[in-house]
């Protein structure tokens, strides 16, 4: 007891005396923790933003279609409007929000230009709830309800077609009967979404006018819903399948393979980065701890000459490492916390945004700290540091006093 107190006092003072080297070791450990945890949080944030953006991009957690729609999203593949047992499932606890849409390819023509778009006949209130329309800035007004035949376009599309709020445009599509369905709509609003591709592609009107235009009264192209947890949807999908046996049911992972791939690639990079951080840290650590032993060969020999046994010398060096380790881990986590608070408003990618848009990610990334990432990063660094301090300690224990005096 007395002896270990003495070892601790010696260790503490030695650490304090070699301030420069101790600071170096301390910051190596702290930097390791900081970079590993922050990188994990950023990668998680990036994945999360990508997935969220994909889900908000009209995808939802789960979609129901007539079989064949995904390969050829046209008027031919339709579902009856939701009713009966399917409605009961959709209104249950397991579903946080749902809607049904008409969704068909169309051509939009202004006085000057024409371009291919996707026409959506929606229930606006529900869309605000579960799609990117909820995040977008709306100029003019939103489509009021499912009977409203006003048309909402993306800002970018309006620019392209050289049209504006109040003007009339023509929507052309294929009707259910195979003939051309065509109708003039008044532009009532413009939406400014995070993704330019969404602004260019989607045009919205009430569900009922869309059904009338296409001649599919009482029918829709898809049902979209949000469950409670995007990573636990299997049970819900099974229930839905029982309620709608003829529908094809897919979750976001099937519908947004690109987002899923992106997340996988990121995890790969994350592991590579962990590897780099850990190799760097361990070199730095072994190096400084070995210096701590070499510089003090004479002192350690003296301790042995005075009657300290080898295992006490080993313990002494290990305690020194532990003091530095505890300090470094504390410092690293405090710095990480400060960084996370500082970045909690999100990192605005600004000028990089064009590049990230291609990846389907928004402009702002929110670092997301997960308990798992935190504990992996911390235990890796701590384990590694302990491992790295064993060698110098072992070396110190093997010093023979006479030789140590001779070489010092």
């Amino acid at each position, binding site marked *: 007891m007395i002896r270990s107190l003495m070892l601790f006092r010696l260790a503490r003072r030695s650490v304090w005396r070699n301030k420069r080297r101790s600071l170096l070791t301390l910051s190596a450990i702290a930097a390791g923790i900081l970079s590993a945890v922050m990188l994990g949080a950023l990668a998680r944030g990036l994945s999360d933003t990508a997935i969220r953006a994909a889900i908000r991009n009209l995808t939802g957690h789960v979609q129901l279609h007539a079989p064949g729609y995904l390969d050829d999203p046209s008027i031919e593949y339709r579902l009856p409007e939701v009713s009966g047992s399917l409605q009961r499932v959709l209104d249950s606890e397991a579903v946080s929000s749902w809607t049904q849409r008409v969704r068909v390819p169309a051509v939009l023509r202004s006085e000057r230009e024409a371009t291919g778009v996707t026409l959506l006949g929606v229930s606006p209130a529900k869309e605000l709830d579960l799609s990117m329309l909820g995040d977008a800035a709306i100029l003019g007004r939103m489509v009021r309800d499912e009977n409203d035949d006003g048309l909402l376009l993306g800002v970018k599309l309006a620019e392209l077609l050289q049209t504006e709020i109040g003007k009339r445009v023509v929507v052309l599509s294929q009707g259910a009967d195979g003939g051309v369905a065509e109708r003039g709509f008044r532009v009532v609003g413009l939406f400014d979404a995070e993704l330019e591709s969404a602004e260019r592609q989607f045009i919205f009107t009430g569900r009922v006018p869309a059904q009338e235009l296409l001649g599919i009264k009482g029918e829709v192209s898809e049902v979209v819903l949000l469950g409670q947890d995007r990573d636990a949807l299997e049970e819900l999908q099974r229930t839905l399948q029982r309620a709608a046996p003829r529908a094809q049911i897919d979750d976001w992972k099937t519908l947004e393979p690109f987002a899923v791939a992106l997340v996988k690639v990121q995890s790969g990079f994350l592991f590579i980065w962990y590897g780099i951080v850990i190799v760097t840290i361990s070199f730095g650590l072994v190096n400084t701890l070995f210096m701590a032993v070499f510089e003090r060969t004479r002192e350690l020999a*003296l301790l042995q000459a005075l*009657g300290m046994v*080898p295992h006490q010398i080993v313990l002494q060096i290990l305690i020194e490492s532990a003091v530095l380790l505890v300090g470094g881990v504390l410092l690293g986590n405090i710095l990480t916390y400060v960084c996370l608070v500082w970045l909690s408003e999100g990192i605005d990618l600004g000028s990089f945004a064009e590049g990230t848009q291609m990846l389907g990610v928004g402009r702002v990334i929110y670092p997301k700290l997960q308990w798992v990432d935190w504990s992996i990063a911390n235990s890796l660094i701590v384990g590694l540091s302990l491992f790295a301090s064993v060698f110098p300690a072992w070396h110190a224990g093997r010093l023979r006093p006479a030789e140590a005096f001779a070489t010092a």
Partner: protein
Amino acid sequence: MGTGHNEAAVAVERLSKVFQDGDVRVQALKEITLAIAPASFASICGPSGSGKTTLLNLIGGLDQPTTGSIRIGGRAIEGLGQRELAEMRLRHVGFIFQAYNLIPVLSALENVAFVMELQGVGLRERVERAQAMLRDVGLEGMAKRRPGELSGGQQQRVAVARAIVSEPDIVLADEPTANLDSRTAESLLELMQRMNEERQVTFIFSTHDDLVMRYARRLIRLHDGEVETDEEKGS
């Protein structure tokens, strides 16, 4: 400490030490036989490379002999393991080196108390004994100073205090005055002589210094690892 009446404090018999450095083989000691009585004040002298440090290291258990036997207070120490040697040093040997004798992060008082702490002496007793010892070597006001804040002569005095305070059978001092000017060296020698007389501690030191040889009551001269002369100067 448990040394019998006729028992020597240190007895070495046919002690040899060979250093093998790759192809180079150096025989530092050649079958030395010596006995040093309790309460001696003995000096080992001889030219550089004659084996003084090697002999002191073997006696103190800092190194192990190639052949031969060493007895400290009647106990054979050749063939002991590192742990047992450390234990032996802790209980029976005090060391004074030429320089860097003290643990830099400990104060003078803590340095003196350190060995007692290793021995498991309680806090109050060790502080009292260390303080008394510092007073005895004339460093009463310096207890709180770190080694870096003491002069070379003061550091050597602390080292003497530390070597003696744990009441060892022998104190081994390898060129204790080599880094000191002659006046400081003389007062250190007087201190050691007084400790030897008052406390009956056995001192064995090595030296190049004529001054030190004058203080010694026994002079063992080594040459090429062998005892050349061994004279008792009457006491």
